[in-house]
């Protein structure tokens, strides 16, 4: 009995199960295959994307030590997705510069880092991007993790960033026997050959399939992620926090699926990283007014309450504008000519949004 899956996936045909037609084992076998595929591969697209234009974000040398550049919260597909591939485009002024990426799990406090990886290009887009791998070696249950990018620029000089991209590696086929976890939910892989001809169709298959589908619907999708710069070199001025212009661009037009408000556990999670916390501030994101309650990362679980946008017609999906709202409240909260960072106001240095 193999918990295998097919790539690209083959679909079970619902019309083959209507009255008057024989319920073929093909449909059931494919249904098992498809569940295994969705668990192994689903959510293994991009989980982090950010870009800086030319000469915008340069990290200085720091006496040979690592400097944090950015932080984001990212989605993790399941407790078994333990390999994160990170691609960085950057160039260095002096040979010997490196970067290290890491993920930290809130529940255990454990942190897993990539090896220091050399940055070899000496000009923007000179040769190629660099890939680093983080391996999660412990049993971790968080499905949202804190991701950190650190850079060690060689002396003398600096490292200039162009972009970062990351994805979790899919699980290979066949999935191992036994049950898997996604946060606190369970997924039971299906033995595809067990669903073949002349074998009994057990009640267990149906019950487990329904539970698996419920689990997979909760799996997170990255809808938006942005981090301000944490350590730029003197004279180089990337954004450190969200500014008054940003409601025009700090959002994604994304699909959210009908029924999510009617089913438990299907919520959008918003993470904001707050600097210079002061009590009583609120921010408008995803159509909700959110109270900021502490310095550092604030987390919110939100139901969908937005109106669809006209792009729905083009995408054949229910599309929504998900991100920082264009509101008078945000105009007074965000960095601006009347709210300068050099006066130490509260500001937002990171925004991540994870949907289902």
């Amino acid at each position, binding site marked *: 009995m193999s918990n295998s899956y097919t790539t690209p996936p083959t679909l079970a045909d619902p019309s083959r*199960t209507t009255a008057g037609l024989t319920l073929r084992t093909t*449909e059931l076998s494919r249904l098992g295959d498809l569940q295994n595929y969705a668990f192994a591969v689903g959510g293994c697209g991009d989980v982090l994307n950010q870009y800086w*234009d030319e000469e915008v974000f340069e990290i200085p040398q720091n006496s040979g030590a690592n400097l944090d550049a950015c932080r984001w919260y990212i989605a993790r597909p399941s407790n078994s997705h333990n390999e994160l591939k990170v691609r960085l485009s950057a160039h260095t002024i002096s040979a010997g510069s490196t970067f290290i990426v890491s993920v930290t799990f809130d529940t255990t406090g454990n942190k897993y880092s990539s090896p220091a990886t050399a940055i070899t290009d000496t000009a923007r887009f000179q040769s*190629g*991007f660099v890939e680093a791998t983080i391996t999660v070696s412990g049993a971790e249950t968080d499905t949202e993790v804190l991701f950190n990018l650190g850079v060690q620029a060689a002396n003398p000089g600096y490292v200039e960033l162009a972009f970062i991209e990351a994805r979790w590696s899919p699980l290979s086929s066949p999935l191992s026997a036994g049950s898997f976890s996604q946060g606190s939910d369970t997924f039971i892989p299906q033995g595809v050959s067990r669903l073949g001809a002349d074998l009994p169709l057990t009640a267990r298959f149906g019950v487990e399939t329904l539970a698996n589908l419920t689990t997979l619907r909760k799996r997170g*999708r990255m809808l938006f992620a942005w981090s301000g710069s944490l350590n730029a070199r003197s004279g180089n001025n990337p954004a450190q926090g969200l500014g008054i212009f940003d409601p025009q661009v700090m959002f994604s037009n994304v699909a959210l699926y009908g029924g999510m408000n009617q089913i438990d556990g299907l919520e959008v999670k918003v993470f904001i990283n707050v600097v210079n916390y002061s009590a009583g501030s609120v921010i408008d994101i995803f159509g909700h007014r959110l109270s900021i309650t502490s310095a550092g990362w604030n987390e919110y679980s939100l139901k969908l309450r937005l109106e669809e946008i006209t792009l729905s017609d083009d995408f054949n*999906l229910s599309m929504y504008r998900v991100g920082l709202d264009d509101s008078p409240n945000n105009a007074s909260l965000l960095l601006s000519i009347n709210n*300068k960072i050099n006066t130490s106001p509260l500001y937002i240095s990171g925004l991540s949004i994870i949907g289902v």
Partner: protein
Amino acid sequence: MLIPTGFSKLPSKEGCFNNQILFGGTVAQMASAAAQLSNCKFLGEAHYHIGQEVLATIGGMISFATGTSGSVKTNRTYNFLYQSTPLSSHLALLIQYRAANFEATNVNIKAKLRATGSNSYTGTILDHGIQFEEGLDLTHDRDEVSLAFTGSELVSAPTNTQPDPVRPLFVPTSNRGDLLNVVIETTQALPITVHIYDLLIPEVTP
């Protein structure tokens, strides 16, 4: 079959117990819900914000023309990595940008698709791509952010060697699931966000 685009209510698990008649409807609902996951929910997408220089004393963006890098420059090339999925066949692009100077130059944005073998920015061209034209696909506006969109037509595999009018980029079958490079070249236009989407194929033959 039509791919469902919503989370429809699942059948009761009691319907699967022993001594129950397992109607086809129960299995059909499971099949539809599984197809929604694989062919709709877990399609890929990538959302890039392109950081620009800001005023040091303010620390955040207050407009889209501040600083040296924020002003429109000619002939820039951007590389946007995109982790495709096994079902990525057509990629739609939504680009927020600012463009001006239509009267003096030929303002345009080109997009093409490359492979990323050996982590290269100049891998094999998979789709020679498209061009957004001034006055047709691009808006002349010095002050406001504009939006360029490829549309969502499910085109056949293209054969062009020069940029086509706007359409989604096409991912060859053999490259689906690969790490791809969406290369964007601008002339007198400055992008501020680039969003890349797998397009939903509404009807699939099982």
